[in-house]
């Protein structure tokens, strides 16, 4: 439906004759990504019955992946957790479940993320600091002690070694009597964004991509309820990208995985329904909501028109969101409760399927129990008290939100074209394109803060002198030795010869084109450690060193 000529004249007239009578404050009227915002949006900016907006649960899913949205089912409240050894983290898992969270999310420590065992010299000082230390199946068993894996979905944030952790999880469930095909959950696996932003790698890009495709293929056959990849923008954004870059690079990574799986010979409708996404929920409220809506519309269109998907489930983008860690301040930490609330609300109004809310003390450390409880309560208050769950896509039809959604979409396609010109995402990464874009955006934003063009309360304005330091979680240094002892015990108990055979078999398979999941599972079953399996594969694949730009 065309906008009536009368409406056009009216908006222009208002701008020229009414708005211009008042002065503007001396401030930036753009999003935190630098996207300019107009003083007013009107019917001129959008056609409310545009089929590009559509209906929730129907192509192009702009208004949500499901018809009923939160009337049918609330988002999963899924707090990222992990520190110390599996004993401490299992305790935190139980605490969170007891306080009403509805899904698990596992944070692993730096050595585990980078493929090092806890007794490796590079693990010194790092064990259990940023997440939980997991070296073998023995650890994984205790991580989920008292938690029936058939009754909960679990997310695991791990990428280069993802196949190994998935093997551990499947085996723990098997020991609990639960077959793999019944398991629901997600493993992050998104290696492209590692080279771009999170920077946790074990292998060069091509063998790493092979492993991703192996997992997509294997899960499509053996674990129909499982999400083998969580195509992520969170980390890209935390590294300093704009919202537009987060959207574009994430979707382009996703398309790249789709292409590789199709090249492998998989039917897109056999794996696409279980591709999932993970976005940042940052502080610029409307930009985030527009970002999620644009993401759904772009994914739906490309899956149908470019990749030939026939099933609606293949076109339907579903995502987890985490409130922006980088927005938290060490100064006046209680202000972070406000930030997290706004960010969580944006994610909900944007239609997220799963949500982690940061704790107020997380600018400097992992969260204490008290702080993470407040973060969980934030979600529960939004869900039960605010009323925003009563209808799908409450902001749909808003002139501002629809216009911003359109503009986010256009910006994304601009980036797709540039990446295609470079030869696709893998080649773009080799040439440092997304990395440089991110570094430039991060620097621009920091200059804006330094020059006070943008304000962060408590940091460059509304500063409070003489604050008392907030009590924060301290990781007991003794836990590192405790984990090393656990690892030695595992090695002492296991059948060393069986491990050797399993690792040799893994190495053999790695040098072929076979799917590596079966040999990884067998090695895991024999109690080969994560580090041992990674080394076996590195002997075939090699390692990776970046050539950084700044």
């Amino acid at each position, binding site marked *: 439906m065309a906008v009536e000529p009368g409406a056009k004249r009216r908006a222009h007239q208002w701008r020229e004759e009414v708005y211009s009578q008042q002065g503007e404050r001396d401030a930036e009227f753009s999003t935190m990504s630098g996207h300019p915002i107009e003083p007013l949006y009107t019917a001129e900016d959008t056609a409310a019955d545009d089929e590009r907006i559509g209906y929730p649960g129907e192509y192009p899913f702009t208004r949500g992946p499901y018809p009923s949205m939160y009337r049918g089912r609330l988002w999963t409240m899924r707090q990222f957790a992990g520190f110390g050894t599996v004993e401490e983290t299992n305790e935190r898992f139980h605490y969170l479940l007891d306080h009403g969270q509805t899904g698990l999310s596992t944070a692993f420590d*730096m050595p585990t993320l980078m493929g090092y065992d806890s007794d490796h010299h590079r693990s010194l000082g790092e064990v259990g600091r940023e997440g939980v230390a997991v070296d073998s199946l023995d650890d994984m068993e205790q991580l989920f002690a008292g938690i029936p894996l058939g009754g909960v979905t679990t997310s695991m944030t791990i990428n280069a070694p993802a196949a190994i952790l998935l093997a551990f999880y499947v085996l723990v469930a098997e020991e609990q009597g639960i077959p793999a095909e019944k398991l629901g959950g997600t493993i992050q696996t998104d290696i492209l964004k590692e080279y771009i932003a999170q920077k946790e790698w074990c292998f060069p890009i091509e063998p790493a991509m092979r492993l991703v495709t192996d997992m997509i293929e294997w899960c499509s056959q053996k674990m129909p309820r499982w999400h083998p990849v969580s195509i992520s923008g969170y980390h890209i954004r935390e590294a300093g990208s704009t919202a537009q870059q987060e959207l574009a690079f994430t979707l382009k990574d996703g398309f790249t995985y789709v292409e590789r799986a199709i090249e492998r010979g998989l039917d897109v409708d056999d794996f696409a329904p279980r591709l999932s996404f993970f976005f940042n929920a940052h502080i610029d409220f409307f930009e985030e909501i527009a970002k999620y809506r644009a993401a759904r519309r772009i994914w739906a269109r490309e899956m149908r028109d470019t990749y030939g998907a026939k099933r609606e489930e293949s076109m339907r983008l579903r995502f987890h969101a985490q409130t922006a860690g980088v927005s938290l301040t060490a100064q006046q930490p209680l202000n972070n409760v406000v930030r997290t609330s706004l960010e969580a609300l944006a994610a909900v109004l944007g239609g997220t399927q799963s949500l982690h809310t940061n704790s107020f003390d997380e600018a*400097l450390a992992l969260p204490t129990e008290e702080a993470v409880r407040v973060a969980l309560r934030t979600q529960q208050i939004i869900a039960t008290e605010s009323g925003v769950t009563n209808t799908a896509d409450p902001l749909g039809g808003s002139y501002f939100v629809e216009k911003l959604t359109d503009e986010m979409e256009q910006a994304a396609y601009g980036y797709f074209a540039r990446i295609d010109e470079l030869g696709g995402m893998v080649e773009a990464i080799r040439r440092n394109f997304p990395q440089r874009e991110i570094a430039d955006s991060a620097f621009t934003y920091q200059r804006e803060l330094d020059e006070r063009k943008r304000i962060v309360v408590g940091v460059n304005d509304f500063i409070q002198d003489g604050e008392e330091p907030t009590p924060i979680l301290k990781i007991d240094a003794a836990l590192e030795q405790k984990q090393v002892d656990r690892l030695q015990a595992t090695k002492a108990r296991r059948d060393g010869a069986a491990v050797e055979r399993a690792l040799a078999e893994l190495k053999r398979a790695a040098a072929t084109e076979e799917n590596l999941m079966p040999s990884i599972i067998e090695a895991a079953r024999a109690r080969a450690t994560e580090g041992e399996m990674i080394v076996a594969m590195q002997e075939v694949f090699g390692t990776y060193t970046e050539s*950084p730009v700044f």
Partner: protein
Amino acid sequence: MATATARKIRVVVAKPGLDGHDRGAKIIARALRDAGMEVIYTGLHQTPEQIAETVIQEDADAVGLSILSGAHMTLVPRVVALLAEQGVDDVLVTVGGTIPADDIPELKKLGVAEVFTPGAGTDDIVDFIRAGAAERHQNTD
């Protein structure tokens, strides 16, 4: 009397350990370069040994250790000790990252000149390094 040398201040910006958070380190590296200093960014996943070697090889006036993994109380003392072992005691050592307030006094006792925590202004960091490195220039003339 100090000679009016045109030698730029040389700063190594380093990422010790397994920590992959490089947003801040890259911003500081660029800001220092824009401020006219010679910047050597080590990239990620540096061992303390690699960092000490880079500082010495590059004849650095200052080294900024960026660390957000919680492993700072192991890795920073190790870098400081290695520099001392090699007889390098005039390099300005600064630390940036997610460093709890409680850890700062101990780091400073070890010889870290300053710790820049979240919210620190870029210009303050640049000024501190320029002043600290210049002081060392004076002391060696």
